[in-house]
């Protein structure tokens, strides 16, 4: 079974530029999460989708971050404009259901460096 795919794996941009990350979840997984992992910290939820609807985006900085999950499969996360503090690893995860015991499977992440 293929895992969660993310691209690109690494990205370096200058502040005020824009960037987009792509995630392809495991086939059949209805729930998709984007987490931000800053160096030295644990991942923090940015946004959660159930199919193509947003379940929780309370921690998404909406003035600069946006995300979509068209057709309830792939998802993109965009930052515009980027700030230095956005340097982090962006992790995508998916799960089969929304049950609280449903295991989340993580992709390898995209490491973003903002200079």
């Amino acid at each position: 079974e293929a895992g969660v795919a993310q691209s690109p794996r690494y990205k370096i941009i200058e502040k005020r530029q824009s960037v987009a990350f792509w995630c392809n979840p495991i086939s059949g997984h209805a729930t998709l999460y984007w987490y931000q992992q800053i160096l030295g910290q644990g991942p923090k939820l940015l946004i959660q989708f159930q199919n193509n609807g947003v379940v929780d985006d309370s921690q998404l900085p909406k003035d600069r971050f946006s995300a979509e999950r068209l057709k309830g499969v792939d998802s993109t996360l965009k930052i515009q404009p980027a700030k230095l503090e956005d340097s982090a690893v962006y992790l995508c995860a998916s799960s089969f259901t929304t049950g609280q015991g449903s295991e989340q499977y993580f992709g390898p992440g995209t490491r973003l460096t903002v200079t």
Partner: protein
Amino acid sequence: AQSVTQPDIHITVSEGASLELRCNYSYGATPYLFWYVQSPGQGLQLLLKYFSGDTLVQGIKGFEAEFKRSQSSFNLRKPSVHWSDAAEYFCAVVLNQAGTALIFGKGTTLSVSS
């Protein structure tokens, strides 16, 4: 404040020695509890989880964890560490009344010496 605490930032263990990584949580009700491992350049992998029932939980790769309600703890253990266990370990919770997103501790980096 509500939180997940991993008191040890970095631990070094000799190969073959036993390991215990600590995790404490501060929430009103017992959350769902998880341990994940993150190896360099790889995604997070679930080691084990606890929802209810037997407080000693067995996971993959020879790991186990014990839930202690009185101490609000969920410590991860392994009787004999292998060099391949060197990685970062995260304790995480899902709050019963707050959706399904994981709330992570800051992680503990495990180094294994020969």
